[in-house]
C-alpha cells in the first residue's frame, strides 16, 4: 500500500542532498574544455556621450578572441532589450519607451552600463585586455534622485523624454477621493521615502553559451528564474534567431528574489558572442559587478494623505509617488510601481475612495525592477505607516483604529475601489492571534523594564494584504502586459507507475521538488519518493513563465493539479476497460481504481503498466501511454496577508535598534508543506527587516557613483542582527485556486518593514518622533534622538 505524503505533511526536502554535499550544479560551476572567458567593459560614468571606442590594443593583447561593441550590435541588426509591460498614463498617453541596447549606443546612462565585451582564453587575459579598451566619453551632468530628475533644468537622459518622465500614471476615482477629503474630520499626512535596495542573491549572476555550427543550435546556461521567457524574448526580439534553435537552461540557481527574472543584456551578448568566436563563452559576475548591474528595487518618494471621520473611519486615501526607474526600462520595470503598487493601497481596510498618482521617472542609476514583494511592500509601508500617524494624530489606539476599519471576514469577497477583489481573508482573526502570540498584554511591563535600564522599547503593527499568484492573463493584458501569465505542467507517468513532472516554474530555494511531489503523491496516491520534478530547461520542459510574484505553487501547482486530473481521467478509462465496468462506476482513491460497490480494483501501477503494454486495452478509443499536460491561467490574483507585530528596544546612546520579538501570523491559504512555508516566511521577514534597519543603495548625487557597492558598504542582514521569529499561519483557503493555496514567497518581505518602523517610531514617540525613514540605522536613530523635539530629560519622566 502506497504511503502518501500529501497536503499538510512536512517531509524533508528532496533537493537538500546535492547542496549539502557540494554536488549542486550552478552556472559558475560549469566548464567546457575549449571555453573562452568574457568580461564586460562597463561605463565608469553615470551619464556620458559615447564618442568612440578604440579596441585595437585590446585586440592585440595575448589570448584575445574578440572585442564586441555597440557598433557590432548595430552592424548585425540586433534588437534591444524589450520591456514586457506597456503602461498607459492618466490621460491615455502611452509610457515613453526608449530603447535599451544590449551594448551602449551613443550614450551611457548609469555607472555599469555595458560598453564592450572582451573575450579571451583566460579570465586573466580577458581582464587585462578589458583594461586596454579605450573609450572616449564626454561626461554629462548626472541625476540620481527622482525629485531632482523631475525638476526644471535637470539633466535629461533622453532627447525624446522631456522632464525624464516615463509615465504620469494614475489609478482610482480622483473626484470621489476629493469629495471624501472635503467632508473629513481629520486628515493625516505623511511624506516618506522607500529606500532603494539591492537584492543580492548569494549566487552572483553568470552565463555560459555555446553554438553548434553543425545544426545551428545555441545553448545558454544562465542564472535565471524564467528560462523560457529568456529564450522567447532573446531569440525573437534581440538576436532574431529561430526560437526552436535556442536552448536555455537555468540549472541550480543560488537565490533570485526577482533579480534573476529579467532578460539581461549579458545573456543576449554572450549567446551572440558564442557563435562569433566559435567556442563556448563563459561569464561570471563578481559581486562588485553585481552591485552595478543587477536590477535594483524600490526607490519611491511618496506623499500620502488619509481622510478620516470623527470616529476614525477611513473616508479617502490619496497618494502621490515618484518612482525611480533608473536609466532604462527593464523587463517588468514600469509595472512594479504602478500595477503592483496602487491596487494594494486599500490594504485590509474598507477605505471607500482611493486615488493614486505615480510619476515614473528616469535617472542615471541602475535600472529598477522587481525585488521580492515588488510594489506591494511599498504600498503596505505607506498604508500601515499612515494608519499609525492617523491614530497618533487623533488620539485613538492604533490597534483600535485598525479594527474599526478592517474588512470583516463575512464581507469577503470584497471589491476594493482600486481594481482588485479580495476573494477571502480574515485580517481580524490574524490580528487577534498575533496579539496573543506576541504577548502584547505583557508589553507594558517589558517597556517599563527597558525604561528602567535606560532604553526605549516600542511595539509596531503591520496588518496587511498583498496580491500574489501573478497573474490572470486577461487582467494583466488590460493593464499593459505584453505576455501571458499562466503556467504549464506535464505529468509523465512511467510504465512502472513512477512519475516525472516537467514544470515551467523554477526552483531556486523554494522547495518545489518537495512541495510539487507532495501534490502528486496526494492526487495520484503514490509514494512521494516516486515523484521527481524537472524544471529549468527549455529542451525538457514544454513552456513556462517561471518563478516570481509568489506564483509557483499558485499558478504552477494549479497546472500540476489540472494535469493530475487528466491523468486520473485517463486512468479511469483504462480501469473501466480492464475491470469490465462502465467508466462512471470507476472510483479512484488513494492510488486505487475500483468498481463502486465491489472489491474489484486495479492499482495505479497496474494502470500505468497497462497504458504502456496495451495488450488488453481499448486501442480503438484510447491512445497508449500515460502522460498529460495542462496549462493553467488563474481567475484572479490571490491575496495572502496577515498581521505582523514587532517589538524593538533602542539604545539611546548608540542608536542601535534591536528586535526583541517578532511575530507573524499569515494567511497563505492552504499549506502544502508547513516546514517550507515557515522557511519562506523567515527569509522574507528578514529581507524586510534588512530594508527597515540596514539596507540602502546610495548614489553620490553629483557623480552618480554607487557608494554602497560592496558588502562592506551595503549592509546585509546577518545572523546576529536577525531576530528569533515566531511565525504561524491562520489560513482561509483561496476560493478560486483548486488547491486553496495563496502563495507565501513574498509575504514576509511585504509585511515586515512597516511593523519594524512602526515599532521604532513607537519607541521614540515620547520624544515627539512621528516618522523615521528607512533604513533605521544606528546613525540615523541616534540623530533622530539628538534632534528630537522633546528634550530627553523631560521625556524620560
Amino acid at each position: 500500500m502506497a504511503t502518501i505524503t500529501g497536503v499538510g505533511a512536512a517531509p524533508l526536502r528532496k533537493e537538500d542532498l546535492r547542496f549539502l554535499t557540494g554536488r549542486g550544479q550552478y552556472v559558475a560551476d560549469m566548464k567546457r574544455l575549449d571555453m573562452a572567458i568574457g568580461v564586460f567593459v562597463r561605463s565608469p560614468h553615470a551619464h556620458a556621450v559615447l564618442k568612440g571606442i578604440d579596441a585595437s590594443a585590446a585586440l592585440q593583447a595575448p589570448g584575445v578572441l574578440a572585442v564586441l561593441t555597440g557598433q557590432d550590435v548595430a552592424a548585425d541588426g540586433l534588437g534591444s532589450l524589450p520591456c514586457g509591460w506597456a503602461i498607459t498614463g492618466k490621460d491615455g498617453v502611452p509610457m515613453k519607451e526608449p530603447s535599451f541596447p544590449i551594448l551602449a549606443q551613443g550614450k551611457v546612462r548609469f555607472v555599469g552600463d555595458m560598453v564592450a565585451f572582451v573575450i579571451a582564453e583566460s579570465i586573466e587575459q580577458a581582464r587585462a585586455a578589458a583594461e586596454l579598451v579605450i573609450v572616449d566619453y564626454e561626461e554629462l551632468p548626472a541625476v540620481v534622485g527622482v525629485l531632482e530628475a523631475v525638476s526644471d533644468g535637470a539633466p535629461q537622459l533622453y532627447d525624446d523624454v522631456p522632464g525624464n518622465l516615463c509615465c504620469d500614471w494614475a489609478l482610482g476615482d480622483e473626484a470621489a477621493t476629493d469629495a471624501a477629503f472635503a467632508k473629513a474630520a481629520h486628515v493625516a499626512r505623511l511624506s516618506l521615502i522607500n529606500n532603494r535596495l539591492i537584492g543580492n542573491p548569494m549566487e552572483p549572476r553568470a552565463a555560459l553559451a555555446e553554438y553548434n555550427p553543425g545544426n545551428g543550435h545555441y545553448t545558454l546556461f544562465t542564472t535565471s528564474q524564467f528560462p523560457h521567457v529568456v529564450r522567447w524574448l532573446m531569440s525573437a526580439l534581440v538576436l532574431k534567431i529561430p526560437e526552436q534553435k535556442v536552448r536555455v537552461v537555468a540549472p541550480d540557481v543560488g537565490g533570485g528574489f526577482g533579480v534573476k527574472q529579467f532578460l539581461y543584456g549579458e545573456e543576449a551578448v554572450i549567446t551572440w558572442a558564442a557563435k562569433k568566436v566559435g567556442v563556448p563563452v563563459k561569464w561570471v559576475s563578481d559581486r562588485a559587478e553585481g552591485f552595478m548591474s543587477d536590477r535594483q528595487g524600490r526607490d519611491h518618494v511618496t506623499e500620502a494623505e488619509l481622510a478620516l471621520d470623527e470616529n476614525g473611519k477611513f473616508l479617502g486615501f490619496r497618494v502621490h509617488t515618484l518612482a525611480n526607474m533608473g536609466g532604462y526600462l527593464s523587463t517588468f520595470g514600469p509595472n512594479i510601481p504602478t500595477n503592483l503598487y496602487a491596487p494594494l493601497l486599500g490594504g485590509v481596510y474598507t477605505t471607500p475612495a482611493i486615488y493614486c498618482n505615480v510619476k515614473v521617472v528616469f535617472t542615471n542609476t541602475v535600472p529598477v525592477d522587481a525585488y521580492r514583494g515588488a510594489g506591494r511592500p511599498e504600498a503596505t509601508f505607506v498604508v500601515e505607516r499612515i494608519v499609525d500617524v492617523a491614530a497618533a494624530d487623533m488620539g485613538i489606539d492604533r490597534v483600535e483604529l485598525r479594527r474599526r476599519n478592517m474588512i470583516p471576514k463575512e464581507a469577503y469577497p470584497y471589491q476594493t475601489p482600486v481594481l482588485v477583489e479580495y476573494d477571502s481573508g480574515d485580517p481580524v482573526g490574524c490580528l487577534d492571534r498575533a496579539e496573543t502570540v506576541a504577548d502584547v498584554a505583557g508589553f507594558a511591563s517589558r517597556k517599563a523594564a527597558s525604561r528602567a535600564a535606560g532604553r526605549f522599547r516600542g511595539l509596531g503593527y503591520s496588518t496587511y494584504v498583498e496580491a500574489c499568484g501573478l497573474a490572470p492573463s486577461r487582467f494583466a493584458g488590460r493593464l499593459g502586459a505584453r505576455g501571458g501569465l499562466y503556467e504549464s505542467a506535464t505529468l509523465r507517468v512511467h510504465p512502472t507507475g513512477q512519475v516525472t513532472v516537467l514544470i515551467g516554474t523554477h526552483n531556486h530555494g523554494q522547495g518545489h521538488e518537495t512541495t510539487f511531489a507532495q501534490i502528486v503523491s496526494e492526487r495520484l496516491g503514490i509514494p512521494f519518493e516516486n515523484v521527481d520534478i524537472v524544471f529549468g530547461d527549455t529542451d525538457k520542459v514544454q513552456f513556462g513563465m517561471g518563478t516570481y510574484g509568489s506564483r509557483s505553487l499558485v499558478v504552477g501547482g494549479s497546472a500540476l493539479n489540472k494535469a493530475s486530473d487528466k491523468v486520473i481521467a485517463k486512468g479511469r478509462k483504462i480501469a473501466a476497460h480492464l475491470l469490465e465496468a462502465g467508466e462512471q462506476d470507476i472510483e479512484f482513491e488513494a492510488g486505487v481504481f475500483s468498481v463502486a460497490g465491489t472489491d474489484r480494483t486495479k492499482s495505479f501501477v497496474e494502470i500505468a503498466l497497462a497504458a504502456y503494454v496495451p495488450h488488453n486495452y481499448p486501442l480503438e478509443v484510447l491512445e497508449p501511454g500515460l502522460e498529460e499536460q495542462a496549462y493553467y491561467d488563474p481567475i484572479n490574483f490571490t491575496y495572502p496577508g496577515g498581521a505582523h507585530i514587532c517589538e524593538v528596544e533602542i539604545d539611546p546612546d548608540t542608536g542601535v535598534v534591536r528586535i526583541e520579538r517578532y511575530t507573524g501570523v499569515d494567511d497563505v491559504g492552504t499549506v502544502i508543506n508547513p516546514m517550507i512555508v515557515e522557511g519562506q516566511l523567515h527569509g522574507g521577514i528578514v529581507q524586510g527587516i534588512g530594508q527597515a534597519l540596514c539596507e540602502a543603495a546610495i548614489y553620490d548625487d553629483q557623480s552618480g557613483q554607487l557608494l554602497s557597492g560592496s558588502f562592506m558598504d551595503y549592509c546585509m542582514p546577518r545572523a546576529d542582527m536577525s531576530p528569533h521569529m515566531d511565525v504561524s499561519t491562520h489560513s482561509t483557503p483561496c476560493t478560486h485556486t483548486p488547491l486553496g493555496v495563496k502563495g507565501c514567497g513574498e509575504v514576509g518581505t511585504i509585511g515586515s518593514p512597516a511593523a519594524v518602523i512602526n515599532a521604532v517610531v513607537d519607541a521614540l514617540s515620547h520624544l515627539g518622533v512621528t516618522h523615521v525613514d528607512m533604513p533605521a540605522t544606528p546613525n540615523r536613530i541616534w540623530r533622530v534622538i539628538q534632534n528630537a523635539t522633546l528634550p530627553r530629560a523631560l521625556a524620560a519622566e
Partner: protein
Amino acid sequence: MPISFTLNGRSRTADVPSSTLVSDLLRDHMNLTGTHVGCDTSQCGACVVLLDGEAVKSCTLLAPVLAGRSLTTIEGLAKGEKLHPMQEAFHTQHGLQCGFCTPGMVMTAIDLVNHNPVPTEAEIREGLEGNICRCTGYQNIVKAIQAGAAAMAASTTAAAA
C-alpha cells in the same frame, strides 16, 4: 609551482601559479565546485573550508599556504553515503533553501562547534558573523547548528564508548 597537500584525505599535488586563490584552485583545477564564491571582499563566507580543521575563507588564501597541510571541503565531509552530523542537521532542520551559502555555513558550523561544543543561540549568531545567507533568515540555520552540535557530541561519545 607544485604544491603538495592533503585534500579530503587524499594526497594531492597541484601545479598552479603562486597567485592562485585556494577557492580558484579548488573550483577550477580540482573540479571541486562545492566551495562557492559569493563576493570579492571576504564578506560572505560562501567559500569557507577547513584548513587543518580550522575554518578559513578560501577566497582569501593563496595556494602556496596549503603546502604540507590538510584541507577539507564540503565534498569531503560525508563518509560514503553517511552525512556528517552537521550536514544531516541542516537537512532535518531545513537550514538551507537555495543551497549557495550552505557549504560555507556547514564548514563554519563545524568549526564553531569544535571550539564550543554546546553553543547558545547568541553564540551561534555571533559565530556566523562572517557568513551571509539571503534565503533563510538564519533561524533554521541556528536550529541546525544546535542540533548538529548535539549530534556531534553524541557521535564522539559513541565513538569513545
